[in-house]
């Protein structure tokens, strides 16, 4: 009997946890979460610009630049995916779309660095563009 009660409690607990998970997955994306995601996107862009600067100055290792830029590009892409899958709360549709666009552009720029980690001229341009994208992300985060 005690065993049955224990099993029932575990079942109820499991169903409760599953329901909670389902509800949290359907919960709309709020301004705080969106702001955190945009800050992450801006952070990736800022770090990417620092890495691109090092490539432009030819003062880093080629392998390191390739691997680290791949990690950063992936991070930006994952942010874009998370935002695409999210359901923004009322009034946040437009900034969410802007954040997705920014993340995509940042991922593309850093992806170019990954493809040519020893092209100093291209890296200088990428660094400038990533700084600009980072500023745009900061402005967007500040507006939320």
């Amino acid at each position, binding site marked *: 009997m005690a065993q049955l009660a224990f099993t029932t409690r575990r079942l109820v607990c499991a169903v409760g946890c599953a329901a909670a998970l389902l509800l949290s997955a359907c919960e709309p994306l709020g301004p705080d979460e969106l702001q955190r995601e945009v800050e992450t996107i801006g*952070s990736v862009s800022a*770090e990417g610009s620092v890495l691109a600067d090092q490539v432009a100055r030819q*003062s880093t290792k080629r392998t390191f630049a390739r691997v*680290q830029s791949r990690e950063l590009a992936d991070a930006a892409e994952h942010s874009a995916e998370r935002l695409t899958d999210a359901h923004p709360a009322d009034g946040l549709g437009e900034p969410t779309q802007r954040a997705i666009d920014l993340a995509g552009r940042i991922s593309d720029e850093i992806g170019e660095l990954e493809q040519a980690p020893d092209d100093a001229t291209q890296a200088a341009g990428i660094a400038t563009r990533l700084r600009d994208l980072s500023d745009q992300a900061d402005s967007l985060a500040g507006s939320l």
Partner: protein
Amino acid sequence: MKKLVQVALGILAAIGGFVDIGDLVFTTQAGAEFEFQLIWAVIVGVVGIVVFAEMCGRVAAVTGRPVLDVVRQRLGYGAGLVTVIGSVLLSFLTLSAEVGGLALVMELFFDAPYATLVLVSVLALLVVTWILPFEWIERVFGYMGLALLVFLIGAIDLHPDWGAVADGFVPSVPEHSIVLYAYFAIGLIAAALMPYEVYFYSSGGVEEHWGVKDLGLNRANAVLGFGLGGLLSISVLLVAALVWHPISVQPDMIGTVALGANVPLGEAGLVLALIGIAVAVAGAAIDTAFATAYNIAQFFGWEWGKYRSVRVAPRFTIAWVAAFALGYVVVSTGVDPIQLTEYAVVFSVVVLPLTYLPILLVARDRTFMGEYANGRLASALGWIYLGVIMVAALSAIPLLIATNAGGG
């Protein structure tokens, strides 16, 4: 000078504790988020570990007994068993993280598939640990880990505002998110006091056959070894504060830590940083593998010690080899090594007080330690730090949850 070159045990134990893969990223995050404001937390942690490492080294030198023996004797079988289970899980999770971390650093060098590098890393660790005698493991990984001093040179080269750095030595109210500030402060303090450091350190003292004549060497190891570890930690924090804080980067990759040294010092800085990180992470892996094997062997009364041959201490040898092998299995599941160190915090909550209380009780016990028992200052510092440890242990998990593991 002789003592200065004999502090490898302290350096390696410190590296295993607070400049391992998780802590390098954590310390970089702390500097990027709060600039110099958390330097004091590193210092609080370092003074604490110096106090307790000196005590457990002294107990090992005077009685020939490592920490776990003392824990079991003072707290009895039940509490000893809880301590050994928690401590083995903590050491083992950290070991798994270090194996994965070493592969991550290797990836930055060679750009080979991660799964291959995990296998190569664990095999390299096994071979090196098998071949090298204990004192050479200490020397190679302790002294080569000092390549991380490149972060200190980098920080100086970045010309920080030394007044602002000095302000960081005193706790201050943060401009934003006091909960996040508390999370990082507790994390930095707890990192310096990780229990496997004292298990490794005291067992290392026994491995080196410390006696009463080596009490000075113990003090030198505790102060200089752990002090150097603290300096490395502060240097990493300084570079993060100077490079990443001004542009609001939130570091969460080991590559970001190394890139910090690249900025002021160019390619040479990057290479030295990567070497230092690789050696520190490998040293931490060996540190935790031995801590795991020491704990199991000492609790069950097996013959133990790297200085003993495999034939004399077969189960101890099997324990550290198995720890590496199981660590490989855990990392091969694809779990993020850096997140793994965060999960390990859960076990440190149980182990921290159960490890440090018995050390203090025995080190101050005149019937046990005779004339080498704690003086008033050591006992007072010990009790104060036991309070700090209790606060860290009780607040670690709530802060981990409240801040989403530092993610805000």
